[in-house]
């Protein structure tokens, strides 16, 4: 056995000796081989999908350096514009940079877990708040205490939703590190780098919960224009982040079969949140302003319906003149115009509606023409009375005065004749 090993060793040694002497090596080939191995290591660094893969590359770099140290002089002259040392510096720099990526990804993964715990907590709080608001609205007593409680709950919920949405945006940010975000499509290695295995289904679920809660919030509350602008700003930020990161997140976290469906589902939730819910909230909030003053308008969800609803209400009021008491009609008019339209809707909502393209100036004028018509029916013009008074003056008083003056004159003349 020992003899056999010695023989093998001798054969190997002789083969090497023979190879050394019989095959002269081309400098060009040495340089080309070095370049190819260098390129291969660069690729390994770029393609490394974990810190472990990267650590293996360090050994490769060391081996290459050792293997070619005897050709340093040749490589220094031939690796134009770099040289032997510089080419290894480049490899080391690439290694450190890539190592940074993995460290960042690990830190981000830890942050995501913390963010998720906070999101989960806020999800629970928000859900409780939404249920309370819906409950209070359903059994709403008109006492001040309930209204104040409801308003406080809405404020709490709005703040909490904003906080939670920010957390979800941060979470999405952290789940897709910037280096991955820039890639149009992620390779399987990239996916395994960013993928977090534990509770991976929560990632996209949280996005959906966020949007759905916002929709529920808009459905359950009446907001003022400033609040709505806030909501739209928040929507914009959320939507931008989703556009930048969402498709990659779906690519990483969804099953192959459900990717298209999920993207479509989230897109449609955004549309529902962005277009439908906000617009509906605007019209409902306006309707609630009237309702708060005892004016019950027919439901409206867009400008034409709004104008038509007001027109119907005014026509009803005009038709009811004389049926209702005059005081009741006047009270309704004052509540509609002075307390709601001119005090709240026109100064607060109309500029927002016109600016947002939800109402045209012509439609606003149409509403005001209806109000004017209502006013003229309720407070009819008294011009005819003035004309009658003038006629009375002209027909009765003036001839009477003239007659009295004439009598006085004739009495004076008679007195003069008697004196004479």
């Amino acid at each position, binding site marked *: 056995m020992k003899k056999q090993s010695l023989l093998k060793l001798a054969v190997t040694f002789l083969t090497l000796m023979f190879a050394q002497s*019989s*095959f*002269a*090596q*081309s*400098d*060009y*080939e040495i*340089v080309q081989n070095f370049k190819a191995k260098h390129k291969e290591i660069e690729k390994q660094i770029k393609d490394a999908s974990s810190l472990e893969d990267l650590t293996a590359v360090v050994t490769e770099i060391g081996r290459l350096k050792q293997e070619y140290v005897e050709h340093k002089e*040749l490589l220094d*002259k*031939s690796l*134009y514009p770099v040289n032997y040392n510089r080419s290894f510096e480049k490899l080391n720099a690439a290694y450190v940079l890539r190592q940074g990526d993995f460290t960042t990804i690990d830190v981000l993964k830890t942050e995501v877990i913390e963010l998720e715990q906070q999101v989960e907590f806020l999800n629970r709080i928000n859900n409780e708040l939404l249920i309370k608001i819906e409950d209070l609205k359903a059994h709403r007593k008109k006492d001040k205490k309930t209204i104040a409680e409801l308003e406080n709950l809405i404020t709490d919920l709005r703040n909490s939703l904003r906080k939670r949405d920010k957390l979800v945006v941060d979470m999405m940010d952290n789940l897709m590190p910037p280096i991955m975000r820039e890639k149009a499509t992620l390779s399987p290695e990239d996916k395994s780098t960013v993928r977090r295995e534990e509770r991976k289904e929560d990632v996209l679920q949280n996005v959906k919960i966020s949007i759905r809660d916002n929709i529920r919030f808009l459905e359950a509350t009446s907001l003022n224009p400033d609040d709505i602008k806030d909501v739209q700003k928040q929507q914009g930020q959320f939507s931008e982040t989703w556009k930048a990161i969402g498709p990659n997140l779906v690519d990483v976290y969804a099953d192959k079969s459900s990717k298209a469906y999920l993207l479509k589902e989230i897109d449609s939730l955004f549309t529902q949140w962005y277009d439908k819910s906000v617009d509906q909230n605007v019209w409902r909030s306006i309707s609630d302003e009237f309702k708060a003053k005892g004016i019950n308008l027919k439901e409206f969800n867009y400008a034409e319906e709004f104008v038509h609803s007001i027109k119907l209400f005014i026509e009803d009021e005009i038709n009811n003149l004389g049926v209702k008491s005059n005081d009741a009609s006047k009270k309704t008019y004052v509540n509609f115009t002075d307390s709601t339209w001119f005090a709240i809707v026109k100064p607060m909502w109309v500029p927002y509606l016109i600016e947002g393209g939800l109402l045209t100036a012509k439609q606003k004028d149409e509403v005001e023409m209806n109000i004017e018509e209502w006013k003229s029916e309720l407070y009819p013009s008294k011009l005819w009375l003035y004309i009658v008074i003038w006629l009375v003056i002209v027909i009765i008083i003036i001839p009477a005065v003239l007659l009295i003056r004439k009598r006085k004159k004739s009495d004076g003349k008679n007195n003069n004749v008697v004196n004479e």
Partner: protein
Amino acid sequence: MKSAVILVLFLIGTFTACSVLTLTPANFAWPIESVLKVNDEGEVSEERYSFSFDAKGIYYEEFQDSLAYLDRELRIIRDVQGYYFITGVKFKNVYVFRAYDGAMVLNNKILISESGVQNPAFNQRSPHIELIDSDKKLKLTHQGIEGGDK
């Protein structure tokens, strides 16, 4: 005597005017050979040293075939003195050129193999150029094979 002095001065003046400024020493050696692909027009170009030339002539000279350059590679290296050594697969000769007045001018044609080399490569081994072909090694100068025929 006077006329002899004038003649000497005239000759000195003439030789002085004819002498050329020469910078020495100069080293033109490339550290490694370049392997250049011949394009469809028969031209080769070298990026690092920024030069190009028409190689059709060398193929015609070697193979007597005007299309022999198609899909071929030339191996080229420059020695310390500035001579270009050119050869390729199946070449029987190494061609030694000098750059002169916008052209590559043949200086020497060195026979290296009667049957043509199979896998040639040049190495810079100043002051000579080493030509290897598998197990065969030749030391070349612009004058010929060192220790062989000039």
